[in-house]
Each structure stands twice: as structure tokens, then as C-alpha cells.
């Protein structure tokens, strides 16, 4: 074949589209697109409506709304509404819950995936998944009647022997510890442990078996394989699961409502002190008798809560997506 001295023109890319193949298809895609946009619509609606209702209160209170620590609803024309202690309480209780729940959840997941035989593992998995579906009001009921007395004892023991550590100090130990962030944190932990366990178990079981076999073939022991291969490789997803649990814990309302003694001081870190509160429980407590003006403040509190969980969830998604390359999809 003779070589031509004219270079061939660059190929023109043709437009390929897997679009609708008929009018029926057009409606099909249109309907599902509208449905898909509903997620946006809902998030937008929630934000809009809450903001509208919250605006008066926010304008009135200013930045103090978040950082101040007074809530005085006595005079309807002169409300002071600040959620500082409640916000801090939510974060503190959620943090305690996550700190307690995560080691337990990882242990449980490790046990199920790497230690139990397949029949026991299936039973345990079903049990954990069922417990993840437990309504929080049932946990609140159990927490109030069954767990609080027990946790009260634990708290008093902690205070007695470890009370010299600042976080375990209490002003009046003889009054008991009911209503402390410690107990509330434990209840929240019980709530979120199944969720974190479920996610971690799923991630552990989806780890590439070749990696684990490779580590074992190199002479790895149980502990060294866990620390150096399993945990690092699963870390992205596990962190995502923990953050999900954190988000759930911050928004938790009913489980701890009756357990908390809501008082309006910031409980910085004395977890056994029966002070402090949580935003979600505060909303529930106040809205019953709230005037329209106070309701505005409560809406603002809810808005803040939503924004916080949105941020945490987004971070969780980013972390999980960045860990994507190692996950067998």
C-alpha cells in the first residue's frame, strides 16, 4: 500500500446517547428524574421552612443563640434563647456514646467475621441487625427503668475510686448520678452499637480474602494481621460507620429524654455531674408550652441540629468514598 503524503483527518467523534427509545421511555425517565429530585426538594424544603420560622429568633438573639447559656421564656416580649449548654451537651453525650460504642462494635464485628463459625456468625449477624432496628423509645423505656439504676452504681463506683480525675469529679455525690451525661452517653451507646457493628461487619466481610491470606502466608499472627492489614484497609469504611453513629447520637431524642435532668449549665466535661442537656431533648421538653416566639427559637435549635448532622454525614461520605479503591464493589 502506498504511503500517502496527506495525513488522514482526525476521526470525528459521533455522539452516542443511550436515551429514551420511545415516548413511553420519555415518560419513564421523566418520572424517575422528578422522583430523584425529591431528595433535593425535601432537603431544600426542610431548610427553607425551618429557616423561615427560625429567622425571627435568630435575628433577635444573634450569635449568642449558639454560644450563650441562658434560656428565659418568662417574658414573651423579651425572650432570651440561647442553646449553648444544650448544644454542648448533645456533643458531649454523643462523644461519650461513640467512645463507648466503637470498641465494642469493632470487637463484635471482628468476632463475627473472623472468629465464629458460619452458623453462629449468621445468628449473631441477624441478632445485631434486628437490634439496629429497635425503636429508640423502647431503648428509652429500658434505659429509664432498667439501666439507670445499674449505671448509677457504676457511676458511683467510678466516682469513688477514680474521682480524683477531673472528669469524674462531682460536687454532691450523695445525690446520685441520674441525669448525668455519663448515663445518657451509655444509653446512646447502646442505641448506636448495632449500627456501627453492622457497618463494620459488612466491611470486614468484604475485605479481599487474598489480602488476609497473603498476610497469614507471610507468618502473620491474629493480632498482627488485625492491626496491620485488617484495620488499616477497613479504616475508611469503619470511620464512616462511626460518623454515621455519631450523627445518629447527636440527633437522639427520646432515648435519653427521661434520663436527662436538663439543667441550663454548661457541663464542660464532668461526665458524672447531673447537669447539662441535649438539644433534641430540650426541643421536646419546651415545645409543648411554647409560645409562637419561643417556638421560633426551638425551630432555630432544630435548624442548627440539622446543619450539624448534614456536615457530619457529608464528611462521612467523603471519607468512605476516598477509601473506595480498596473496597470490592
Amino acid at each position: 500500500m502506498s504511503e500517502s503524503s496527506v495525513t488522514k483527518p482526525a476521526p470525528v467523534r459521533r455522539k452516542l446517547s443511550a436515551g429514551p427509545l420511545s415516548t413511553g421511555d420519555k415518560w419513564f425517565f421523566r418520572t424517575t428524574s422528578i422522583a430523584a429530585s425529591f431528595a433535593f426538594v425535601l432537603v431544600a424544603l426542610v431548610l427553607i421552612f425551618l429557616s423561615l420560622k427560625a429567622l425571627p429568633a435568630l435575628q433577635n438573639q444573634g450569635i449568642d443563640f449558639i454560644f450563650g447559656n441562658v434560656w428565659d421564656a418568662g417574658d414573651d416580649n423579651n425572650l432570651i434563647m440561647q442553646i449553648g449548654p444544650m448544644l454542648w451537651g448533645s456533643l458531649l453525650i454523643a462523644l461519650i456514646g461513640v467512645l463507648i460504642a466503637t470498641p465494642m462494635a469493632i470487637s463484635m464485628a471482628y468476632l463475627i467475621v473472623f472468629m465464629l463459625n458460619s452458623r453462629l456468625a449468621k445468628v449473631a449477624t441477624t441478632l445485631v441487625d434486628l437490634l439496629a432496628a429497635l425503636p429508640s423509645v423502647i431503648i428509652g423505656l429500658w434505659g429509664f427503668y432498667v439501666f439507670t439504676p445499674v449505671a448509677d452504681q457504676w457511676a458511683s463506683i467510678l466516682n469513688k475510686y477514680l474521682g480524683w480525675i477531673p472528669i469524674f469529679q462531682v460536687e454532691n455525690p450523695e445525690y446520685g448520678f441520674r441525669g448525668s451525661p455519663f448515663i445518657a452517653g451509655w444509653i446512646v451507646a447502646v442505641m448506636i452499637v448495632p449500627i456501627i457493628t453492622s457497618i463494620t461487619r459488612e466491611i470486614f466481610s468484604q475485605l479481599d480474602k487474598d489480602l488476609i491470606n497473603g498476610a497469614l502466608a507471610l507468618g502473620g499472627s491474629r493480632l498482627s494481621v488485625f492491626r496491620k492489614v485488617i484495620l488499616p484497609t477497613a479504616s475508611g469504611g469503619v470511620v464512616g460507620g462511626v460518623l454515621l453513629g455519631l450523627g445518629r447520637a447527636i440527633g437522639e431524642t427520646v432515648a435519653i429524654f427521661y434520663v436527662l435532668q436538663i439543667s441550663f449549665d454548661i457541663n464542660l466535661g464532668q461526665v458524672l455531674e447531673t447537669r447539662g442537656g441535649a438539644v433534641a431533648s430540650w426541643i421536646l421538653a419546651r415545645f409543648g408550652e411554647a409560645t409562637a416566639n419561643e417556638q421560633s427559637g426551638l425551630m432555630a435549635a432544630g435548624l442548627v441540629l440539622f446543619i450539624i448532622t448534614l456536615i457530619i454525614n457529608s464528611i462521612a461520605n467523603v471519607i468512605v468514598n476516598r477509601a473506595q479503591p480498596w473496597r470490592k464493589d
Partner: protein
Amino acid sequence: MTFAARPAIQPWRRANKKRIWQIVAASVLPAILTGALVLLTGIDPALATVVVFLPSQLVLASLVGFSAYGRRGLGDAALVVLTIFLSAFVMVLLLSVLYSVLTEGAKAISWQFFSQNNVYVSGTTSLDYGGVGHAIIGSLLVVGITTIVAVPLGISMAIYLTQSQSKIKNLVRTVTQALSGLPSVVSGLFILSIITSGDFLTKSGFAASLALIPLMLPTVARVAEEALKLVPADLRYAALALGAPNYRAFFQVILPAAKSGLITALLLGLARVIGETAPLILTLNTNNGTSLNPFEGAMATLPTYIYSYLSSSFAPSQQRAWGAALVLLIVVAVLFGLARVLGRSKSLKTKPTNKKASK
């Protein structure tokens, strides 16, 4: 080649007698020690378990491991002991919840408890009268309306995520995941804000249903998406290659193949919202009598029933709360069990291929 069927043995399990005794000792001695300590000094058993039993078992097990395999044996033994301990601890807590609901709730359960309402019941009325009948009906009505809206919506979203080629798919998925983090109380506040904005919506069962939609939707969408993704792409390609338009390929081939998974999505979504309390408290007034009209007036539901009787100082009321909790638990367990059974028949969870079973 001929072979004689022989029993398989596992030489790596051939146990060293000395080692067995060591392991038994390491497990039993701490138990004896702890038990003795509790009996003699009356220490709280739970405390003794954490402070005496766990450390002593850790130490003894580590010693056994060390004597067998050196440093790594120590680490492995400690890992095993800690894992079992922490897992057992978790299970005790969680099972305690189930146990107390079952035992306390059983005291209140009777046929009349299921069927009657509480119109003539006061705080101290004995458990022979009254029940959760009205709450069960209320729950069904409220959740029913939510389901009618949320399930088609969620499945449509799942269809969109799996079938369309749009570039904003990931955005949709992200927003849906963000929505799943919506605190339930905030969803209630959202509907409450609509209620207080005008006259078109009042506190009612319907308002409660609306508040539950943002909570049910992400669950249904997520599970439905997983169900649709499980259908092999080849099925779709086969239908398209035969000349079917997308929507026919979907309804006639993909949908039937994913049917059980989609039902699972419905069931799991139901289980998620049927126990939600906070949104209901904010948008629905409770009622001692039976109401069949979700569009106006007060209505009782199972979660709000529990909530209102929870803090009563009267024993019968407390038992009603437990009874209602048991009813709620049974409902959730049944929904969950159905979802599981369906899921197993269509392998909803992708099990990893067992690469150890080699050629």
C-alpha cells in the same frame, strides 16, 4: 486410582494435653477467684467482673499464649480474650433490652390489651381494662399513609439511580444519604413549621405521616437501589437487544427479578418509621379513644403511647408502657423477619466469594 473412604483428621487440632489444661485453668481460675471474692466481700458482681475477672483472665491467657508461641501468642491471647469480653458485654446489654421488654411486657399482654382502647382508663385502672387497640390502629393509619407516598417515591429514586445515565447521579445519591441523617425531631419540627404557617395543615395523623416521609424515604431508596443493582446487567441487555424500550425492559424483566428485594425495601422502611416517636409528638395530639380519621383530630400511636405512659408514677400505667413496647417490638421483629426471609431467597446481601475453596 482407587481410594478407600477414610475419615478426615485435622492434625493441626491435635491438642497438646498440657496446653489444654493450661487453657482450662486460664479460663476457670479467674472465674473461681472472682466468685470467691464476690461471696466473701460482697462486691458488686458486675464490678468484680470488670476489675478482677477480666484482668486476671487477660494475664493468665497471655501467659498461656506466651508459653506456647512466644510474644505473638501473648498478643493473640489478649486479643481473643478482649474481643470475647467486649462482645459478651455488648450482647448482655442489648439482650437485656429484649429481655426486659419481653418479661415486663408479657405481664400486660392479653387479648383485651390488643383490642381495647383507653377511653375509660385512668392512671390507676387495673390492667384488666384498656389496651393499645387504638394505638395499633393509629400507627397503622399514620404509617400507612407514609408508605403509600414514600415507597413509590423511593423506588422511583432507586430506578433513577440505577437506570439513568445522568451525570448528576452521584449528587442525587449524596443528597439522599445526607437526608438519611435527618434527626427525627427535626423532621417533626419541619412539619410543625408548616402547620403553624397557615391553616392548610393541622396537627393530625396526616401531618404525622408527612413528618415520617423524609425518614422512610432514604431507607427505601437505599435498599431498593441495592436490590436493583443485584439484577445482572445481562438481563437488561437481553431485553434491549430484543428491541424493548427501556421502560418495558424495566417493568417486564428487571422489576420482577428484583421483586423480593423491593419488598424488603418496603419492609425495612416500615420497620424504621413505625417506632419513631419525636416527630409524632410534635405533629399529632394523642387520644385515649379510637380515631379512624387521620386528617383531623387526635390519634394515638404505639410510640406516643409508650412515651406518655413511660414516666407515670402509677404501676399499672408503667406496665401498659411495657406492654405497648412489647407490641411494638413484635411488629418490628415480624417486619424484620419477613424482610430477612425474603432477602435470603434472593440473596440480597452479596456474600464474598470464598477464595479459600480452591481448585
